[in-house]
């Protein structure tokens, strides 16, 4: 526990931590203002499925709950992966860069415990990002557009409490997807002494997966790429919830998270620290 607390203290002493959190909290307010003061809806944002996006963005002004969903749709394809990648890549490579990695590892802590504490805190950071995005959307949407019963894609209407519950599930799901990005970036972070290289490595992997998704030739690969499953949260907005795609996505995420973190752990334990 103490090593987790120590890593958490470290990120609290970095300005970028609060910049990231602040941005995610404020972005829903900016989106709200854009809807509030423009006559026509804005262009479709994000890379979500076309019909879902179109439906959500045309209805935001009628119901604040749509803003909660719209913010998630807009942020989950690029901005959240960007923050997740930065968070994960900063873990080992960031300390190597500043020369503090050797200072840390000259104290009596096992490499494994050090790495796992870092991994954990990098994920907590992203969890707080996702939470603040939801909280900002709830406040911005609720205050300006009000919270009303939600009409699902499948036609049924659900109450506000039920809709908020589904939103929480959707946000939690997206967080699990982001854990894949964090874990991949932590792996890259153990392989290089430059946190920028590691962050770009994580992002490039996300982008390559997105690009592969655009070619039908690579369709056979789709089920294995975690990015392909990011949109599965929209299944929470059907009644009844379509669990099939959600479960497939969760299995995929678990394999990526455990796999990449396992390789990072194995690699870091045997590596020479020359920074």
């Amino acid at each position, binding site marked *: 526990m*103490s*090593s987790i607390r*120590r890593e958490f*203290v*470290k990120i609290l*002493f*970095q*300005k970028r931590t609060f910049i990231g959190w602040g941005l995610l909290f404020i972005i829903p307010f900016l989106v709200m203002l854009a809807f509030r003061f423009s006559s026509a809806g804005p262009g479709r944002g994000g890379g979500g499925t076309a019909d879902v996006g179109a439906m959500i963005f045309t209805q935001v002004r009628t119901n604040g709950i749509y803003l909660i969903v719209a913010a998630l749709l807009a942020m989950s394809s690029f901005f959240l992966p960007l923050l997740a990648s930065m968070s994960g890549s900063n873990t080992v490579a960031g300390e190597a860069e*500043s*020369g*503090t990695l*050797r*200072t*840390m*590892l*000259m*104290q*009596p*802590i*096992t490499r494994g415990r050090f790495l796992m504490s870092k991994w954990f805190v990098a994920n907590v950071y992203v969890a707080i990002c996702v939470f603040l995005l939801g909280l900002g959307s709830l406040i911005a949407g609720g205050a300006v557009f009000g919270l009303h019963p939600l009409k699902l894609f499948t036609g049924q209407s659900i109450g506000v409490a039920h809709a908020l519950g589904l939103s929480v599930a959707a946000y939690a799901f997206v967080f699990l997807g982001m854990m894949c990005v964090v874990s991949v970036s932590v792996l890259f972070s153990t392989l290089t002494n430059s946190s920028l290289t590691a962050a770009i490595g994580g992002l490039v992997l996300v982008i390559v997966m997105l690009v592969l998704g655009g070619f039908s030739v690579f369709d056979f690969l789709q089920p294995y790429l975690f990015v392909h499953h990011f949109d599965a949260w929209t299944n929470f907005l059907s009644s009844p919830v379509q669990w099939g795609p959600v479960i497939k996505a969760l299995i995929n995420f678990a394999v990526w998270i455990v796999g990449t973190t396992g390789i990072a752990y194995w690699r870091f334990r*045997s590596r*020479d*620290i*020359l920074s």
Partner: protein
Amino acid sequence: MTAEKFDMAQEGRLEHCEGKPVVLSTHGLTKEFGSLRAVDNLDLSVCRGDVFGFLGPNGSGKTTTIRMIFGLIYPTSGYVQVLDHKVPAQRTSALRHLGGFVDDPMFYGNMSARRNLRLLGEMNGHVTEERIAEVLDIVGLLDRGDSKAGSFSHGMRQRLGIALALIHDPDVIVLDEPTSGLDPQGMKDVRELIRQLGAQGTTVFLSSHLLHEVELVCNRAAILSKGHVIVQGPVSELHPASHAVKILTANQSKALEIIRAMVPAGGVREDEGYIIVDSGDGFVPEMVRRLVAGNVDIMAIVPAVEQGLEDMFLELTSTAEVALPQAIGRSRKGGRL
């Protein structure tokens, strides 16, 4: 002066430490980076209470050795032992008995010196505010304890590094060139501090490329070259057993003539205007009598000990290697390669 002569002087006194326990030792420690053998079969032993000098030119493997002592890098073969704990096998338990830094000590720049000591010190056990103030005071940083470590100069970071090394009162502190890059006053302060630590019974393992520094603060030393230990033993015995003197006279050529008649050819040479004679006890009075008898006015006769030490260091660390004397020349200027 040859390496063999020193090795003979060492025999039988390496391990026993005159009854004191060996607190830090390396056993056949070897590290290869690709085809480069950075550290080659290193056997060191540091006794409790030693201020042990780890002397060698830049690039001789000092930092690589220290990284292996702390378990930052894995030996290709061999191991380090700290009291009963082997590194890397029992790294974390060994580290509880070790403090120190390798290379330039680095800290969390956004945090105060005090918070850095708390954060890093607590990894070794409970740390009180009093202890933090105490170690800051020892290194002369008490009034800067609340400044951010990021604002510290190189010299201040070296001191903070020593403060962190001391915080859990370890059995051995290992300092990697703690005076490198400091101004003369800073060097003097840090050396004085190390001497005091030694006087209080703290075991110190001090790496340095400065012979002079090791002579000043250490009681035992090892000289490293190309990853090998060439000499290891009490600093007093690292001195060449030399009776060499430097002579300056009004007529150097005539003096040289007279002296050459007294000693074998290899015993006399000229350097920077002086005649340097390396000969046995009782030689000097006889030489003076003959010079006076030959009407040569003597301006000065001084012991050439410093000269002999420098020569020895150069000779020892440059065996069959042309590039090394240049490296030492650079290191004398205080720069790091």
